[in-house]
């Protein structure tokens, strides 16, 4: 082709190309920016607690370790957090430090997404139950500094005197309160409640503490193990203490009723104490265990989620400084005082509110149970199914025996 035939790039067309390139460049630039090196003193952290809870803790860490700064993101537990973390892990954008919990620990360990922390000097400061919860083959994959338990919270002005330790006594008390014109008990049945979990925990004790392993081994079914527990809990509906509206309640709706003295008893976990006292500092209340079949009361609960170190952490050394601070006295004491959780680390004895009552010793003695933590695998799928089944039971769509049957069917479909 002769040069004269070739279309020429005029000044005008050159200008257009330049303008187009100017538009296209930011798109390429933004993609390229993803690969830039990170600040070596930055610790990225995906928090399970919200900014109100975790913000002051992070500030305290940064004050004590001014050479580091924490870039924190927040995601609400549980499903929302797991979804976000999984997306980040899948796209190689997970933070240096994140939460390992019952619902995702198997996947995180199987996928080698978390580093072994057993060699860290501060690992020996963790409680044995906490270490056992997040360990596999002698390797520690999460630093859990606390545990929680859940049961009943009783307004002592409305329910004076001895609180029953057997379930029939509790039902009688509720009926008496109702007859006297007091709303006796409310429970937000968004899924497996503290009372359901406590009853299943009592069943677990009856099976020698190996109920779930027996189910997974095929020696027992959910129907056999769970039905007595669910039937006992369902008496709340049969006796007219709760009705189907419980399935539409949330903790946020129940809490003001209790704070304002319109409700005698509700169920919540130890983490809920700051919410109660925050709105009603003078309320006379105390945590009580869920009354049991034969006077043996029990609690729902579990070792709290732990902090895990990303295998692909960009700044692992800095992240370990943060983990050490969070797992030992300086961080634990600040975190505990701000949030009133029950710390279980060895180098710090927390001062806990008297309203927690027997709950503290229950946590220290391990007298609690949570199905989603104890299940062998597929914890999250089964937890979702169990939540829906309990709600359907509360609305009267199914019978107590159908809860166990439904879980058996779900487990069978997963295996």
């Amino acid at each position, binding site marked *: *082709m002769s040069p004269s*035939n*070739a*279309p020429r*790039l005029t000044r005008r*067309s050159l200008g*257009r*190309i330049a*303008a*187009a*390139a100017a*538009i*296209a460049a*930011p*798109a*390429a630039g933004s*993609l390229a920016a993803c690969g830039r090196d990170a600040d070596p003193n930055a610790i990225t952290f995906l928090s399970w607690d919200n900014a109100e809870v975790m913000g002051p803790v992070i500030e305290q860490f940064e004050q004590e370790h001014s050479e580091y700064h924490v870039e924190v993101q927040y995601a609400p537990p549980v*499903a929302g957090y*797991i*979804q976000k973390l*999984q*997306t980040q*892990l*899948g796209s190689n954008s997970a933070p240096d430090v994140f939460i390992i919990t019952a*619902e995702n620990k198997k*996947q*995180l360990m*199987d*996928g080698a*997404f978390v580093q072994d922390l057993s060699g860290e000097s501060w690992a020996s400061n963790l409680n044995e139950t906490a270490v056992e919860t997040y360990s596999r083959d002698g390797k520690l994959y999460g630093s859990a500094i606390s545990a929680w338990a859940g049961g009943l919270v009783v307004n002592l002005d409305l329910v004076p005197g001895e609180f029953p330790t057997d379930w029939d006594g509790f039902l009688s008390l509720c009926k008496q309160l109702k007859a006297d014109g007091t709303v006796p008990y*409310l429970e937000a049945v*968004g899924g497996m409640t503290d009372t359901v979990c406590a009853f299943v925990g009592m069943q677990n004790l009856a099976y020698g503490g190996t109920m779930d392993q027996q189910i997974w081994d095929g020696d027992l079914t959910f129907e056999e193990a769970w039905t007595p527990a669910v039937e006992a809990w369902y008496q709340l509906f049969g006796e007219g203490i709760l*009705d*189907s*509206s*419980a*399935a*539409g*309640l*949330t903790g*946020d*709706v129940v809490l*003001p*009723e209790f704070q304002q003295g*319109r409700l005698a008893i509700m169920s919540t976990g130890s983490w809920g104490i700051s919410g109660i006292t925050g709105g009603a500092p003078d309320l006379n209340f105390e945590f009580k265990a869920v009354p049991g079949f034969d006077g043996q009361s029990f609690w729902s609960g579990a070792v709290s989620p732990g902090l895990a170190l990303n295998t692909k952490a960009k700044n692992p050394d800095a992240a370990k400084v943060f983990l050490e601070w969070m797992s030992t006295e300086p961080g634990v004491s600040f975190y505990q005082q701000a949030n009133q959780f029950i710390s279980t680390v060895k180098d710090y004895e927390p001062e806990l509110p008297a309203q927690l009552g027997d709950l503290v010793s229950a946590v220290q003695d391990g007298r609690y149970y949570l199905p989603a933590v104890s299940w062998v695998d597929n914890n*999250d*799928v089964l937890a*979702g*199914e169990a*939540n*829906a*089944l309990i*709600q*359907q039971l*509360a*609305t009267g*769509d199914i019978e107590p025996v159908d809860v166990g049957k439904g879980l058996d069917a779900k487990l069978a*479909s997963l295996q």
Partner: protein
Amino acid sequence: MGTAIAPPRPAPPFQSPPRPTRLQRLRRRGIESYLFTLPVIVVFVVLFAIPLAQSFYYSLTDFNGYSTEANFVGFENYTTIWQDSSMLSALGFTLIFTIATTLAITALAIPLALVLNQKFFGRNLVRSVFFFPSVVSVAILGLVWGFIFAPLGTGVINSIIGWFGAQPVAWLAEPTLARLSVIIVAVWGGTGWHAVLYLAYLQAIPSEFYEAASIDGATRWQQFRYMTLPLLTPAITVSQLLLLTGGLKVYDLPYTLTGGGPGFATRTLTQSIIENGIAQGEVGKASALSVVFFIAVGLIIVAQLALSRRLEARFS
């Protein structure tokens, strides 16, 4: 001396112009036009084409979202999704929600737009009031309406009906009422926005049309039936397209209002896809559902557009 006439030179053999190279063709069309569309193409490919292809690939595997290994399982996921009661329930509620909100919002937004198109004192304030619900985050709407629909006697609606001696209603606890509650909130939140959309089209109708119709003796109803409604058909097409796509992929409102419960009563397909795919580590199954969902939405939208075009042609 005679004039020498040069013999005519033979015409050169015909030669077709050389075929332009690809680069030349590109230049002729204007390289700048390609560069201008480059950002959009990058966004489309990165955020749509690649994820869609990946979803289809994962739907044929047992990928769990964590493991780097994914085994090919054929169309097994496509058969298992129909055996999961929660997914079938989600499909049913998603369709109910979509149809109910589309019909209800359309039925309410058009009359509302007609009212807002009239001249009256405080018109702009009233328009703002009706538009306001669409400004607020749907998640916040869900949380606020959770208190309004609270099943206790202290819930807002139950307090009001309690003044008349009625017993508290378990709005979010009874499956049918929970579905109805979600739809009511969605209609409440979307009607104002769609009314503003209709209002924009109404204001484009020349007032002379109505003046001529009045002179010819047309009643208000006849003006609406034979002038306003046909001229609003393009707006109805746009509005219903948005309502259908928005309804089929709804997630945030039911999730914040009921969490998908009670049981699976208000669970939507998007919630199933997200929870199964990510939280429960069944990415293969969720991807199969996503692919089926994508095709279904595509078919519904194509059908809706075809119907709308026929209606537009008929009325115009």
